[in-house]
């Protein structure tokens, strides 16, 4: 079961390493991890995507909560939520295929953010599925580089993760 867990963490050196060490020490998966300070500079917000049985997910949230520097956390997949991931893709293309690629970028509502004679750099935001699907549709171009931010998420409506 794929889960998106959002964590408010004390913005202190070493806090992130405790989270990462917890996952490796207990053999849990991390599919993606993204972290940055919030509007309150003393707090970082960390989003991680993991998978496992219900029992493992329960342990993951309990073990995370046990870390002294974890202030609060929520399993976003428990409720209605929005998830986004950003991707930068560099592709090499020939002049006859440029139009086709631009069409795909347009369909996926991406943007070309850098260009030269043979290279497009494309920016795309969406769910992880959408990004995967975009890459599949790029098969006609030669992908040189893919950079993905990892998933971040937020609950819909009134619900929020804040202190």
């Amino acid at each position: 079961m794929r889960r998106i867990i959002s964590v408010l963490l004390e913005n202190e050196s070493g806090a992130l390493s405790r989270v990462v060490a917890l996952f490796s020490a207990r053999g849990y998966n991390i599919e993606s991890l993204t972290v940055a300070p919030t509007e309150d500079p003393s707090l970082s917000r960390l989003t991680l995507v993991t998978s496992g049985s219900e029992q493992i997910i329960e342990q993951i949230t309990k073990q995370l909560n046990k870390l002294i520097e974890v202030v609060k956390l929520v399993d976003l997949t428990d409720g209605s939520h929005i998830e986004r991931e950003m991707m930068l893709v560099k592709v090499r293309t020939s002049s006859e295929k440029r139009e086709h690629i631009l069409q795909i970028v347009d369909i996926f509502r991406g943007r070309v953010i850098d260009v030269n004679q043979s290279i497009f750099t494309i920016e795309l935001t969406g769910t992880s599925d959408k990004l995967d699907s975009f890459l599949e549709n790029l098969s006609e171009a030669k992908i040189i580089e893919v950079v993905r931010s990892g998933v971040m998420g937020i609950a819909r409506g009134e619900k929020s993760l804040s202190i």
Partner: protein
Amino acid sequence: MGEKLNGAEIVIRFLKDEGVEYLFGYPGGAVLHIYDELYKQEEVKHILVRHEQAATHMADGYARATGKPGVVLVTSGPGATNAVTGIATAYMDSIPMVVITGQVPTDLIGNDAFQEVDNVGITRPCVKHNFLVKRVEDLATTLKKAFHIATTGRPGPVLVDIPKDVCRQSIKYEYPKQVSMRSYNPTTQGHVGQIKRAVKLILSAKRPMIYTGGGVVIGNASDALRQFVTTLGYPITSTLMGLGAYPAPEKQWLGMLGMHGTYEANMGMHGCDVLIAIGARFDDRVTGNIEKFCPSAKIIHIDIDPSSISKNVKVDIPIVGDVGAVLLEMNRLLTENSKTPDQVALAEWWQQIETWRSENCLRYDRESEIIKPQMVVETLYQVTQGEAFVTSDVGQHQMWAAQYYHFNQPRRWINSGGLGTMGFGLPAAMGVQFAYPEHTVCCITGEGSIQMNIQELSTCLQYKLPVKIINLNNRYLGMVRQWQEFFYENRYAMSYMDALPDFVKLAESYGHVGMCIEKPADVEGALKEAMSLKDRLVFMDFITDRTENVYPMIPAGAGLNEMILV
């Protein structure tokens, strides 16, 4: 505001203000400033060990016996790495401990400086929390946080790493009386609704079983537990860590459960319909094969650590909270409740248990001409009238101590249950002896384990610690040998302890009394004589039956009802 002090002064002043009596440690370059401050005062007594691992075990023993945090001071690099085993030992058994480590100066951190190691990194997986103090402004509050975290919630070791230059910087010091952390607020009161549901289930039980663990000892919940057990009239068993919380001589006591638990305790677990787990964590040495564990039981689990609940075994009624507080609430509800346990069903259940008990699973050959280790422990129990503090190392002797010394008080049985650290027994006994100088403190050990921290005999002489060492010497790493006999067709790979020292001479060369006991008839006399030497450390080397095994035993992968009896 307070007076201006440098970092080293703050450390010592803080320990004094915090009421720390003993500091177990070993000096070195990075902590020299702190040692210089120690020299100038007398309130905080520093105990000089011979190896840093022993410092942590001493602090640990002190903490287990008193409930107060044990405090350690060691230097950077090897000082800290030597302490790691003791920190991990305390972590696995949830023992409150604060370890202060020296660190190279801040401007050298990360430069592979002399005696530099990433203390925070190396201990991260085996501490409740740790800190690197980079500014003297943070020192006092960090130390306060360390004590707060170590002693509250589910206790554990906390490490504070102090770079050498921070010891030299000065700032105004004021003792931080309190500390609040937005990210750390352990739950203590159990959920009232859950407690009510639990009581209802408890009263509906036909074949109940109470299973307690170290949490009852750590949570000082023995009195509440005793009332709970007496009110209900239900059978009680305990893990290795929980021994003493309920008095072993009582009739409702079934003995320890688990891999080397009694027949009646394990069969009772397997057959019960309601299991009440209190401050225990369903460790693999307790459950045996999880698939076969308590097949017909509804399970109630009280624990202060939410992550202990449903980690290994899914439970029906979880209650997160301090075991003492929850038990008090349950006792109140039980007294108020008009419903009482089903006496007919209970009588039948007890009858069944008595049949199991009549198996007398802890029997052994009492006529043997070679000393049986069980007999030594049993005799020690009689000679000390069950009143001694008993520490142990790890292996067969540890199990025999647990089975044959019938603890009737909490905090008297001190051993490394979770990590299983050989070398724990002697330094732990020393820590206990510091806390209780007038009491009898015995270390039950083996010739393998005792050699892992034997150098502390020197510390014992320096501080005149009259620890009584009961060495069950079977010339084998007994538990390893037992497994090799059972599961590796008698291939005794490396389990034979060759080239043993003459322990009597060894003890004497350290300035202590040594005895070697080879005949069963001499056991009682030797123990009595040793106990009468109130102010001397006595090393008793009992030459025991080398073929003796620990029974009963549940082989790996088997259920609690699939025991090997004698």
